[in-house]
């Protein structure tokens, strides 16, 4: 393919591509790598806490008993505003109840079994979602990086006029930067649909709050909830006066008999044990990209209608589809494995982009060992930091300071490489450290060693 793009346009696209790529490189690499690892979010939770009770399904009555038991265990504490029941699904066949105060696993009979301990999985998800920055700031920053991937994809295509024509040429054994450039360009082309889908859905999720604030300011008199309501449904008014516990069992029974084709994934009980309490069931629809439909029930378990994520307005279906499309949980293990493969490819594209730029400068006679060592520290330091946080979780337990360990290592390793030992090039040394960390984590995970 030889599109009619002028040399000047190609050069400007290359400059723009490099500018965005280098500006975003380290954090974009971290976001892509954590995003790839977190595809197995459910599996990581099972590895973290292998002895939690598992079940293929749970009866509505057992869920009712479990909800009552959890609320009874919180007597004397401020009333929880929301109670979530994670229902057993194929990837995570566990029933877990989360309130404002605790998260516990329950057994198939609805008895409280043990506290949920999935700190590493949660840390990993939050690192990808928000760089572990609390509030909406982190999510928004990650959303901006999604926008950067969109701009990088466009500029990359224009900067390489032969990128499609050469799409199957991979000179993997060439030195002097040819092989590196081929890996970068080939993986970019063939993961383009995936990268665009991931970038667009990721930036929609990340920038969703900013967009909603904009919508609220322009159309809803600054009421952000009102801006979300046409898509996700609105919250009911609260009435805090006491009332008997809502009939969750009746709601689940209604869903099972009226919609046997769907599978409940979450029960959400709003303002439990108050007169304003109501129930929402989120249920997966087979062969749909939407995360689920929200079925609404009153406190007595009577059906009040659904929000319309499955068959309502196109906008609702679109918004509900962004999450599964982004995280790859719409087709079981085969789709997850494909997401790991393409996520890894996208991570390699980001990593090789900066390496190509450094290589070009080196070939032009610019000797910059600190820059090179720093980038080696990023590429191999982030996986080391991730692996060591996992090791810390296994050895020190659920309370290990994972965020502090991860970010200290992520920042310290490149700095040490840059200023401690930029020459000889520290790449091999850091790679060996990564392999050692990986082996240590593997041994500890397999043997079940723990210091707590």
């Amino acid at each position, binding site marked *: *393919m030889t599109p009619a793009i002028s040399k000047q*346009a190609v050069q*400007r696209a*290359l*400059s*723009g591509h*490099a*500018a965005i790529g280098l500006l975003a490189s380290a954090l974009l690499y971290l976001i892509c790598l954590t995003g790839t690892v977190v595809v197995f979010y459910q599996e990581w939770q099972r590895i973290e806490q292998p002895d939690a009770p598992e079940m293929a399904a749970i009866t509505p009555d057992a869920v009712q008993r479990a909800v009552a038991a959890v609320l009874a265990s919180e007597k004397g504490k401020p009333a929880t505003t929301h109670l979530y029941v994670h229902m057993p699904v194929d990837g995570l066949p566990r029933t877990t109840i989360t309130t404002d105060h605790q998260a516990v696993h329950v057994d198939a009979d609805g008895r409280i079994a043990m506290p949920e301990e999935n700190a590493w999985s949660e840390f990993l998800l939050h690192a990808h979602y928000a760089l572990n920055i609390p509030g909406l700031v982190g999510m928004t920053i990650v959303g*901006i990086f*999604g926008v950067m991937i*969109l*701009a990088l994809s*466009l*500029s990359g295509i224009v900067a390489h006029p032969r990128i*499609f*024509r050469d*799409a*199957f040429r*991979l*000179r*993997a*054994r*060439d030195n*002097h930067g*040819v092989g590196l450039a081929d890996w970068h360009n*080939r993986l970019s082309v*063939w993961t383009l*649909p*995936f990268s665009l889908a991931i*970038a667009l859905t990721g*930036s*929609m999720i990340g920038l969703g709050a900013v*967009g*909603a604030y904009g*919508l609220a300011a322009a*159309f*809803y008199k600054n009421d952000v909830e009102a801006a979300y309501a*046409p*898509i996700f449904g609105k919250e009911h008014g609260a009435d805090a006066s006491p009332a008997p516990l809502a009939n969750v069992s009746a709601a689940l029974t209604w869903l099972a008999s009226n919609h046997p084709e769907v599978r409940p994934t979450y029960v959400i009980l709003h303002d439990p044990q108050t007169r304003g309490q109501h129930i929402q069931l989120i249920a997966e629809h087979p*062969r749909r*990209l939407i995360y689920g439909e929200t079925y609404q029930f009153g406190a007595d378990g009577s059906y009040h209608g659904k929000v*319309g994520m499955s068959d309502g*307005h196109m*906008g*609702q279906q*679109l*918004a509900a589809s962004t999450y599964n499309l982004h995280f790859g949980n719409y*087709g079981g293990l085969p*789709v997850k494995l*494909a997401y790991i*493969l*393409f996520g890894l*490819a996208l991570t390699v594209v980001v990593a090789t982009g900066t390496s190509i*730029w450094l*290589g*070009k*400068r080196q*070939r*032009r006679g*610019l000797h910059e060992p600190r820059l090179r060592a720093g980038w080696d520290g990023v590429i191999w330091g982030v996986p080391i930091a991730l692996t060591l946080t996992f090791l810390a979780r296994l050895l020190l337990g659920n309370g290990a300071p994972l965020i502090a360990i991860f970010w200290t290592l992520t920042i310290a390793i490149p700095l040490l490489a840059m200023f401690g030992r930029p020459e000889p090039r520290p790449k091999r040394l850091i790679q060996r450290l990564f392999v050692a960390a990986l082996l240590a984590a593997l041994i500890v995970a397999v043997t079940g060693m723990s210091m707590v």
Partner: protein
Amino acid sequence: MSETAPLVWIGAAGLVAAVLQLRRAWGLPRRSAAANGIGWALMLVGAALALAGNGAWGLAVASLFGMTTAALLLAHAGWTSPKGKGRASDRKAHMLPDKGEPRRLGRRLLTFVLTIPLAFVAALLAALGVRALAGMAGWSEADGNATALLLLPLLWGILAFWLLMLPRRGAQCALLAIPAAAGFGLILVGGAI
């Protein structure tokens, strides 16, 4: 996936065939519009069939087959490629100055301000403008709001790329001003503010 519509599998097969055909077409000694066309047509038909079979889910699943086929072909190309003597590109990206070149920090900072915060503002105003237009055209609030949330990152990404392609500051400012002004005008007409 036991009840997956047959059209999804046929579409997936079409996408696999499309990638194989493009591999053949792009490997020909001379460019063949017909061979390329068959490849792209297979891709379109495969995608359309998967979409018709199980909607967006079908398309997403089928596209994974196409990309996996390409990944396998690439793995084969990488595995069998001989050790070459090709010379890598030295094209300058002009990201950092070479020795003796001015740093032009002010110019770089201005480019950053135009591409990140100002392009964001322009994209947000344009997305909200489309939302206002959708409201005036009788779209539901859900469709209008979701469109705005989709357009915000999409327009921002396109603007960031386009701005970097423009050689003059005036053209860059115009590229930001036009969607921003149009969006703001539409919000004033169709919004609540």
